[in-house]
């Protein structure tokens, strides 16, 4: 048996990628009061946007990543305008169902344009290095690093900037925020843009780490959902912690249950959290 530390590290990398969509999913849920399942599809969209840039115009992967961030954010905004904004006052359940519909449409647009086949970026795979008995991939380290920086930026934005405070205020009570003069629709647009961007960027990471196919993002939704619930809806650090825990449990869980039950681990976490501590780790009210 390899040291458990290797599994934990593997889980940290998985969790790092998971954290970006989990934070986006969690914040948007709090802000707009419904779980937006289309967020997982933004990963797929981001991965394909970067693919087009990387293969089509031969952009470096760094540039393609930035492009994916911007384009996916813009797409998320467009989707919000077309699909969710007209439904702003509907019940969360209706909006959640609408988001599943949006995810379905986006996924099929991707299939229609790029086909069902998987793709890969024009980036060589590198051998991992050995650090203190741990096998650590360079790409994974880089992905983890960028994910952590993005999380820190998101958190700094939310805590330190006026707009960030306004976003949290809008999430708390949109009517009161409006009474105080906060332009809530613009705050929502900004959050959608940022959330879509984070998810799109994570999609590129996922494509680099594994491969790109139309179902890549949709397949993650259970893990993203579990991370957001575990962290407490609306808490960015909570979602980060939730993502890391889900990632680690999925990997370390292999020591206890067969690998074919990986997805079941996410479900189990969701169930356990809902039963034991519905407010999640951060304990924010929803």
């Amino acid at each position, binding site marked *: 048996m390899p040291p458990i530390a290797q599994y934990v590290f593997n889980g940290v990398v998985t969790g790092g990628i998971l954290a970006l969509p989990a934070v986006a999913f969690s914040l948007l849920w709090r802000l707009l009061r419904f779980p937006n399942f289309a967020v997982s599809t933004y990963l797929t969209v981001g991965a394909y946007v970067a693919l087009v840039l990387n293969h089509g115009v031969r952009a470096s992967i760094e540039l393609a990543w930035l492009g994916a961030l911007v384009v996916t954010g813009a797409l998320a905004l467009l989707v919000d305008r077309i699909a969710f904004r007209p439904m702003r006052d509907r019940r969360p359940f209706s909006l959640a169902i609408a988001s599943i519909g949006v995810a379905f449409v986006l996924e099929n647009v991707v299939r229609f344009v790029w086909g069902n086949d998987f793709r890969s970026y024009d980036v060589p795979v590198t051998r991992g290095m050995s650090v203190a008995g741990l096998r650590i991939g360079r790409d994974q380290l880089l992905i983890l690093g960028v994910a952590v920086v993005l999380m820190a930026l998101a958190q700094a934005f939310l805590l330190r900037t*006026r707009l960030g*405070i*306004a976003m*949290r*205020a809008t*999430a*708390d*009570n949109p*009517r*009161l*925020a*409006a*009474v*105080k*003069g*906060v*332009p809530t629709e613009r705050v929502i647009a900004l959050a959608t843009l940022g959330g879509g961007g984070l998810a799109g960027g994570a999609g590129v990471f996922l494509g680099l780490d594994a491969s790109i196919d139309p179902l890549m993002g949709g397949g993650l939704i259970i893990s993203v959902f579990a991370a957001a619930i575990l962290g407490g809806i*609306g808490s960015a650090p909570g979602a980060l912690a939730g993502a890391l825990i889900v990632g680690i449990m999925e990997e370390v869980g292999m020591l206890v249950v067969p690998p074919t039950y990986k997805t079941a681990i996410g479900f189990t976490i969701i169930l356990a959290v809902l039963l034991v501590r519905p407010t999640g780790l951060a304990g*924010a*009210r929803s």
Partner: protein
Amino acid sequence: MTALLEVHELSAGYGDSDILHGLSLRVDDGELVAVIGPNGAGKSTLLKTLAGLVRPRSGRIALRGADITGAGTRRIVASGLCYVPQEANVFPSLSVWENLTIGAWTAPGASNERARAVVDLFPVLAERRRARAGTLSGGERQMLAMAMALMVEPRLLLLDEPSAGLAPALQRLVFDRVREINARGLGILLVEQNARESLALCQRAYVLAMGRVRAEGAGGALRDDPEIRRLYLGG
């Protein structure tokens, strides 16, 4: 003289039904005006309509002569009218200080100085400036809600039942602050369940029933009116 707030023949409501039926009232500069009346009289709806949360169907609202009928919340708050809802009037997951920052949203310029000035009025908020508003006591929360409203240096404050749900000692404290704010020259339109207290506090008052003004007059006069006493003050 132009009134601070002039409401003329205002009708408003939710869905298909009107709550306010051609209601008229005015508040003059620096005046403390109370609105009393039974449950369902339309007191809260009146404030929400003035704040821009409910769209008026007909009538006219003017603030210092400027027509703000049907204006958005942003424009209304920017023109000096500030509304403090009865419930959910602070952001629970934000700190006290952050709440004040949002309170000053439309006038960010001198936010810090104003916050200091406002906190002078409510010293307890200075002690708890880093606490999350959700952890404040009911009285502290009410202070914070008023403090937030003062952050934009409004000309007119709309207070929706600031004493609701508070212990008598705290109620007194809240009314003291209301009086103090008014003494600084702010117009206040105060909606209260506690009619006795608010009639004692105000210069003038309106009695609302079924979305219409039933009576109006000086606070003391209304309090001594046997008809009003019988109907709204419980004998």
